[in-house]
């Protein structure tokens, strides 16, 4: 089975090879080895990009392969980030609080410790009580479980309700968007217990590794992201190949026909929706410690739409397309908005890319949809398959 899977999908090997070379190259050129060609902040950017590629693959599977245009997968990504962020924040604050309480003559009671931690974390939003959702935040293992469970269960329940009622197509997209909006509005509230608009911050400081320089931490997370991306790629390649892959693609192309063939379409859809949500959550849990802060703005509906944009530009229905799209657009975007692109002087008007990048992105997106529905990945297909 496995053998045939790899031999059926040579692109998986090529991808893993490229990813390993890239990872190795970045590590060699980073500050850790002393070569300093790639700065720590750029290593972080690259690590984050790998996580975005992972969530893009998940999006590709659910949209490009299964035909569900979910505008909610970035919400699952964010939930993963929040889940890990809660532990990071709690553990870091606990260390600080224990240090300062140690100085007192009378040892602190558990209640005093909890109050002090709560005051540190929630003082900024005017409260010191721990909301119920922080119940597991004191243990890394349980909270890691939450990274998987919360997006998974949410996707399962939402998907079950939606697929059961045969909500499909555009309606489903709007419904997932509504879910994302509801979630981000909920998180925006200060009463949500996740610090409202401020979100969780200082996530780059890993508890227990306070003295480790960020250069090292960034490389560790970069490697972890690369491993996750590689594993995710192999996993999804396996999912979309074989018989299950055929059913999934069949659902995309003609749902009714697959149903008449006797397949339980809803189960397949639910499986794909949930598993991609879980992978998105994992990608988020790796992304936000590198970004340093997570807040509800990250989950806004627009982010999920951008995710769809990446996949579409990269090329739907091919996993490497999603990777290319996410990496290409997000890096290009930060190059343009970061002032990296030179201004274009038209004589009467100077185009500053910080102002015009989004216009360009929007227009090029329309162009891709209209003229290159297969995206950049399609171009790649063309180049690779032509000789053979």
């Amino acid at each position, binding site marked *: 089975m496995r053998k045939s899977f790899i031999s059926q999908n040579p692109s998986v090997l090529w991808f893993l090879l490229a990813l390993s070379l890239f990872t190795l190259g970045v590590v060699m050129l980073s500050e850790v080895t002393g070569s300093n060609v790639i700065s720590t902040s750029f290593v972080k950017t690259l690590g984050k990009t790998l996580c975005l590629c992972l969530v893009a693959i998940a999006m590709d599977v659910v949209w490009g392969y299964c035909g569900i245009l979910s505008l909610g997968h970035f919400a699952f990504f964010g939930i993963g980030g929040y889940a890990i962020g809660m532990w990071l924040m709690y553990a870091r604050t606990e260390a600080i609080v224990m240090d300062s309480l140690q100085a007192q003559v009378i040892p602190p009671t558990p209640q005093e410790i909890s109050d002090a931690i709560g005051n540190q974390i929630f003082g900024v939003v005017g409260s010191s009580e721990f909301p119920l959702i922080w119940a597991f935040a004191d243990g890394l293992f349980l909270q890691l479980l939450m990274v998987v469970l919360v997006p998974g269960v949410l996707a399962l329940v939402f998907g079950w309700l939606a697929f059961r*009622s045969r909500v499909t197509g555009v*309606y489903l*997209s709007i419904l997932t968007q509504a879910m994302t909006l*509801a979630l981000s*509005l909920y998180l925006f509230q200060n009463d949500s217990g996740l610090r409202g608009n401020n979100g969780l911050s200082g996530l780059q400081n890993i508890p227990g590794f306070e003295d480790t320089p960020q250069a090292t931490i960034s490389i560790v997370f970069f490697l972890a992201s690369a491993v996750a991306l590689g594993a995710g790629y192999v996993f999804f390649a396996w999912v979309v190949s074989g018989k299950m892959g055929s059913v999934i693609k069949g659902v995309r192309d003609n749902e009714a026909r697959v149903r008449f063939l006797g397949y339980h379409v809803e189960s397949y859809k639910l499986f794909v929706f949930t598993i991609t949500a879980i992978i998105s959550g994992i990608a988020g849990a790796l992304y936000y410690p590198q970004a340093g802060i997570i807040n509800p703005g990250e989950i806004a509906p627009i982010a999920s739409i951008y995710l*769809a944009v990446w996949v579409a530009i990269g090329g739907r229905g091919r996993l490497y397309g999603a990777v290319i799209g996410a990496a290409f657009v997000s890096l290009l975007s930060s190059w343009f908005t970061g002032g990296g692109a030179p201004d274009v002087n038209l004589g009467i008007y100077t185009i500053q890319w910080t102002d015009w990048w*989004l216009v360009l992105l929007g227009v090029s997106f329309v162009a891709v949809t*209209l003229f290159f529905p297969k995206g950049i990945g399609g171009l790649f297909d063309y180049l690779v398959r032509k000789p053979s």
Partner: protein
Amino acid sequence: MAPGCTKRFDPSRKPVFMRRFLVAIALFFCALTPVQAEDLQRILQAHAEEVANPSRRSVGVVLDDLVTSGLAQVPGFLENWADKNVWRSPDRLFFLGDVAGDVIEVTDLDSGETRSAPRAGFTQLKPNGGVRRLIGTALVQFQLADPDITRRESAVAAIARRPEAAQLAPLIASIDTETDERLRARKVQLANFLSARFAEAPQDRIDAIQSLAQDTSVEARSVLNQILQTEAGVGAAEPEGNIARLLDPMEAPDAYYAQLVEAGLAPARTGPAVIRAALEAHIDAGTVGGVPLAQLGTDAARERAYAALSKAGAVPPLVTEDTRDYALNTYVFYELYDEPNAEITAAAEAALASVEQRVAFAQAADLALDGLSLASIYFLAAIGLAITFGVMGVINMAHGEFIMMGAYTGYVVQLFVPDYTLSIMIALPLAFAVTFGAGVTMERLVIRHLYHRPLETLLATFGISIALQQLAKNIFGTQARPLTSPDWLDGAWVISDVVQISFIRIAIFVLALLFLALILFVLKRTRLGLEVRAVTQNPGMAASMGINPDRINMLTFGLGSGIAGIAGVAIGLYAKVTSEMGADYIVQSFMTVVVGGVGNVWGTLAGASLIGFLQKGIEWLNPSNTLAAQTYMILFIILFIQFRPKGIVALKGRAAAD
């Protein structure tokens, strides 16, 4: 100058009654000295610092002196003072001033002489709002019977803001001579309010109070509530006086106990912090009360140590819940009316109960109006989408940007046409034209190619949406732009103090109705509508009947976009014009269409109504958090669609097929 006269202006702080007495005596003497001509400037100079920097708490003395001086210039001066027209010259005299560039035209307060001077060195007197209110009250007696109606109006407004017992008599006296019908009614109403609170005879007050039982205005309720003011207290037995109610301390034992502690009737609760501090103060060779320090990390151990300490007499005994409850039960907690007369308070209670019932009804009506208004805004924002999405099955994510485009059109028109009424009249059709054009262009260039790929339409139009949004930012900047409504749309339709709605919202409601009618008419009664319906139901068949589907799609899309443009002008008028305003409405609009049921104008109406009223209802349940209301509403919609995927007004038969 008589020495006695200057002396009474000495600004040394003496109790007011004392000052008044002195003033009276001084006035008497001054009246006997014929050489003395009273002079406003001198009074002001006596209080120079207070006049220059008045404060609500201390300006009363100045006002008293000014009013009792009886000078003819005083009312005029007070008005100018409140209007910030009084200036102080470099030699610290006060003048009326009128600034033009670097020159100030100053008018002497007493002689009325006018001269010009360089502006430098003159400082403007800026009494704050609190002081201006006091000035208004001081002016009441001069203005109540003034021939100028605006003065009388401002006097009445001043009474309404600061009702005082002394105003009752002059107010009643001025009613008979009042010529203006409306103002007269207002005076009668105010006199009634004042009598309810300040009339001499209890029966007069009760009569006035009973007449308020029908009045839902905020002012009437405030009169009743003022009469019913209570003061909470605690004592060993029921007090003398007009008791409003006795309270049960067990309802919130901790709060009431805190009240006891504050009154000095019980020792303070021994909270964790107190225990901790006591323990820290009694550390003895590594132990506290016999408990080793290292073990004090639990509440139980701490209480044990504290108990040991209190046994030794080092700290006061622990106040437990039992001692707290015992203390609470030995005392009486009560609320006492400020008003001693029980008959009056009873009448006021009865009147208030009747008013509050009316107010509850009125509030429900107001909430319904707000809901209606919100529904009409959602309807207007969504109806264009309902046409493109519902009739053509095209998702237009750029719909919000068409709304924005319409609003900016309104803004640009106002730049060129300064008359607001005219500019709105131009802006509405122009916004329609602009967005109609944009819609048609978009349909021709993009959407036409994607008719059979709805998900891709969604993405392509999203691309257009971000491009348009950024384009708007590049052209108009990120700053919100003003779109000002004409004067006749300012203000609100006030049914009562509780039920009111702004004219602009009424206008939007009317606009929504108009478009509902227009679209129904176009779809049901015109050739175009017939063709649109034909293309919707079966494009192939329609084409074979000689209808050009391309043309129909183009026109339908243009129509939907054009209405979005008009919605943009309306929304800009009541809220704001920014490049992101479209994004605020797009998700809501989609939900309106989906909840209502696609492909049906009535469905959109139903969807908008449901969402509008629901949101207001949830807001009413949780008034302190509007964000939570929005969250719950979206959750509700998600659930609603799960159970009714085709919306409220679901199409049946063939048209319902995907």
